[in-house]
């Protein structure tokens, strides 16, 4: 995990250093800022050094828990990154909860009532869901918010002066719910199809025939015996779905103005705040790696045959 994050940071750093110009290039055009000031600031940020030295300065700071100072935002990058990381985390988590609570029952009922209208209908919806991009969904959601007025038209939770903790939480949730729904919608199709095929495979197993032969009720067979075994392999697609979720969140955040890591990355990219871009990429990767690690732990916990090395 640690070597991976080091590799990711090194790769991103190298890419950012290939980019011509830095944050101060635009500042040089400003006649009010003297060249000496710029040179001093560049030295302060180590931007006058070769990229590998910059990397070591950056790494040494990060290892001490200091993500530096955002040139564009003029505030500590550490607090900026962590507040944005938290927003991306809550967005992805809520989207995941919504997606799984909708997709699992749908997949189960599609498998149980195979070739019925519910199976055909849900597989059609799955195809549509797999083919529609988050951009379109997010734009439609914005349009929906504008027409109905039920949700804020994108944006961040407002300032919290004079609001009770409960009201703050409500405001946060009110802003969060629509982006999360959009993000969940694009995730449902994959999980549902996986659930359906897992359950169908399990239902073909011999112990299911044995259970039926013993005269167990169909409900008991499916929910007590088959479903438990069919859910296990789903944990392995958890990691995969997390990766697509983070990329989806990137799009949704940028369109619906949710102040998450993806939006910060784009803002930092346009401002040429290269350290901040690297910080964002590393943090997003860390989120993904930790998520996969948790998925592995869950898998080992739910399936005693798997041993973690």
């Amino acid at each position, binding site marked *: 995990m640690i070597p*991976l994050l080091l*590799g*990711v940071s090194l*790769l*991103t750093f190298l*890419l*950012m250093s*290939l*980019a*011509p110009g830095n944050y101060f290039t635009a500042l040089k055009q400003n006649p009010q800022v003297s060249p000496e000031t710029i040179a001093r600031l560049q030295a302060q940020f180590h931007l006058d050094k070769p990229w590998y030295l910059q990397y070591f300065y950056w790494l040494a700071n990060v290892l001490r828990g200091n993500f530096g100072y955002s040139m564009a935002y003029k505030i500590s990058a550490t607090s900026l990154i962590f507040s944005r990381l938290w927003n991306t985390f809550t967005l992805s988590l809520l989207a995941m909860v919504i997606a799984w609570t909708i997709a699992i029952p749908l997949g189960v009922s599609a498998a149980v009532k195979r070739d019925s209208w519910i199976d055909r209908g849900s597989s059609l919806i799955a*195809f*549509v869901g*797999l*083919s*529609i*991009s988050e*951009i*379109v969904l997010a*734009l*439609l959601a*914005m*349009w929906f*918010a*504008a*027409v109905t007025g039920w949700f804020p*038209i*994108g944006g961040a939770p407002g300032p919290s002066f004079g609001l009770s903790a409960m009201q703050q939480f409500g405001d946060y949730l009110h802003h969060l719910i629509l982006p999360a729904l959009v993000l969940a919608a694009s995730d449902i199709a994959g999980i549902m199809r996986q659930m359906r095929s897992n359950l169908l495979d399990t239902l073909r197993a011999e112990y299911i025939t044995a259970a039926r032969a013993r005269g167990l009720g169909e409900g008991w067979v499916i929910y007590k015996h088959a479903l438990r075994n069919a859910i296990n392999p789903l944990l392995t697609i958890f990691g995969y779905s997390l*990766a697509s979720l*983070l*990329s989806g969140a*990137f*799009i949704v955040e*940028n*369109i619906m103005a949710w102040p998450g890591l*993806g939006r910060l*990355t*784009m803002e930092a*990219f346009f401002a040429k705040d*290269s350290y901040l*871009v*690297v910080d*964002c*990429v590393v943090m*997003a*990767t860390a989120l*993904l*790696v930790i998520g996969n690690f948790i998925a592995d732990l869950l898998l080992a916990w739910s399936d005693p045959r798997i041993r973690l090395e």
Partner: protein
Amino acid sequence: METAEPISIAEAKFTLSPGQLFWQRLKRRKIAVAGGVILIFLYAVALTAGFVAPFYYDHLNTDYSFHPPLWPRLSGFHLIVPRTEAQADGFVYHELPNDTKPLHFFVCGDKYKLFGFIPASIHLFGTGDSNYPVYLLGADQFGRDVFSRILYGSQISLSIGIIGIALSFAFGMIIGGISGYFAGSTDTVIMRLCELIMSIPALYLIISLRAAFPPGMSSSEIYAMIVVILSFIGWASMARVIRGMTLSLREQQFVLAARALGQSHLKIICRHILPNTFSYVIVAATLSVPYYILGEVVLSFLGVGIQEPQASWGNMLSAAEDVQYLQNYPWLLAPSAAIFVTVLAFNFLGDGLRDAADTKSL
């Protein structure tokens, strides 16, 4: 193929080759055939976009900003196009009475290059008079025809999908083949690199790759850049799967035979091992094209891909990002329908190909 087993003529009459079997199974899947037909149609239209589109992609007509869709009407035996005029307040248009022009086919209009190099000015339909524009899908902020721009955008999206996949899969197959064939430390290094690339959430990696390119590139440079970026991300997952397949294929006897004949390693990988992975690769490629198309759309949408005035589905959609525009001029969302149809067709075809290539099922 050198490795094919000799089949006696009598036998051949009764058994179908794997290829024939594949076709037979594919043709049985209506939805896959439908996907394939739609794709052939889309690619044909994209190839002749200049001819099918009534306007060139940057044909400005500022008198008709945000003109709603206007279809030719049937009048007697002719299709006619009415003339419209903006009302004084805002972009609301009304038709002028008794002022129409007949719609012609194969009409002379904007100059374009057919297939990218044949200069031409004949269009499939139009009025031949820019005061009587045919806006099948409305007009954008600058009065440019959305329908024409979608067609020109399809040239970019559809070709990026194919070129991107060809590049990244060729690269992924060779790297994966080398990794699996030589195993050992070569394998370890290559696989760690793949894991590194795959562990970064795709869009974050795309944006950091984008940062490595200078601003102010020409449109063809940007196009090449998008292909390079998307291929750089795509090859890793392909290489991993091919490597897994190669690991088992290299133990097969035909590989041993090829080595005993003294063939070079590269030749063994390319001529003997990789062809065995083709059926998987073709299915995986078809199912991955949508990711490349959507990748271009996202980049252009975020403003770091194809730039105005060039038309791309992504940068057209970014006009709809303004909620007010979206509410008043919903036809700005039209490119999303094009994206949807294309991606759906690829998914249908890929799904059918996967089922047909699965030789275990009947």
